[in-house]
């Protein structure tokens, strides 16, 4: 990348803020955001495994943090991000094979995705509490 002032001052092409958000575009953005969140969420998985390998005292302490209100809130968000990214990923695999590109269908899928993610996230947590 050249850094001299002449190059820097050049006009740039319009970016995100200039376009009207449409469902497929919003889902594309949330796919990246959830992916980024899951990247750091992986630390919670690693910490949990380390805690389990470290013995009962440390495990119970970490479990206490995960089980606190804030802990549960973060884990709920983690579950939502994971399921959202999972559904979006499956959609991408179908796209990769050339299916589902019809405009209206793709828009309908994009509208369904956050709803399906929320429903599945709630289902996972309800089953989780029932299995307790």
């Amino acid at each position, binding site marked *: 990348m050249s850094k001299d002032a002449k190059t820097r001052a050049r006009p740039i092409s319009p970016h995100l803020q200039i376009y009207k958000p449409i469902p497929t575009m919003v889902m594309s953005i949330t796919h990246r955001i959830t992916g980024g969140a899951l990247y750091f969420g992986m630390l919670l998985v690693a910490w949990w495994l380390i805690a*389990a390998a470290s013995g009962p005292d440390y495990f119970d302490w970490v479990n206490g943090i995960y089980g606190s209100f804030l802990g549960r809130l973060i884990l709920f968000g983690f579950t939502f991000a994971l399921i959202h990214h*999972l559904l979006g990923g499956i959609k991408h695999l179908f796209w990769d094979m050339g299916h589902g590109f019809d405009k209206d269908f793709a828009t309908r899928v994009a509208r369904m995705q956050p709803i399906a993610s929320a429903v599945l996230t709630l289902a996972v947590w309800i089953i989780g509490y029932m*299995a307790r």
Partner: protein
Amino acid sequence: MTDMRTPLGKVRGLGSAKDGTEHFWRQRVTAVANVPLTIFFIGLIIALNGASYDEVQAALSNPFVALLTMGAILSALYHMKLGMQVIIEDYIHDDAWKFLLVMLNTFFVASVGLLSVFALLKLAFAG
């Protein structure tokens, strides 16, 4: 249109970045692996919700659970390493920062992977 590529270049099919579709393809392979492995991991967490230390320890030292968990973590780590690299390359235009962050990305993923695998091996073999 005149094709300026050499016969060798055509056979290799790697393009100017010299790695062809490798990044894209590995992203997809790990994505496919992540689907069942993630569902397994969600099921494991559901099954272990509210479990005591002994139950968690026993579950994680089961060979099938340990191997599937390890697979889920390694596949997810490779997948997110590739994904974060694309995010860095998209938004960081300064070469020095880009190099540094792409390298940090690798170190981060390797560290999380080593810690997780070591923890699982310790649970499986040393209790």
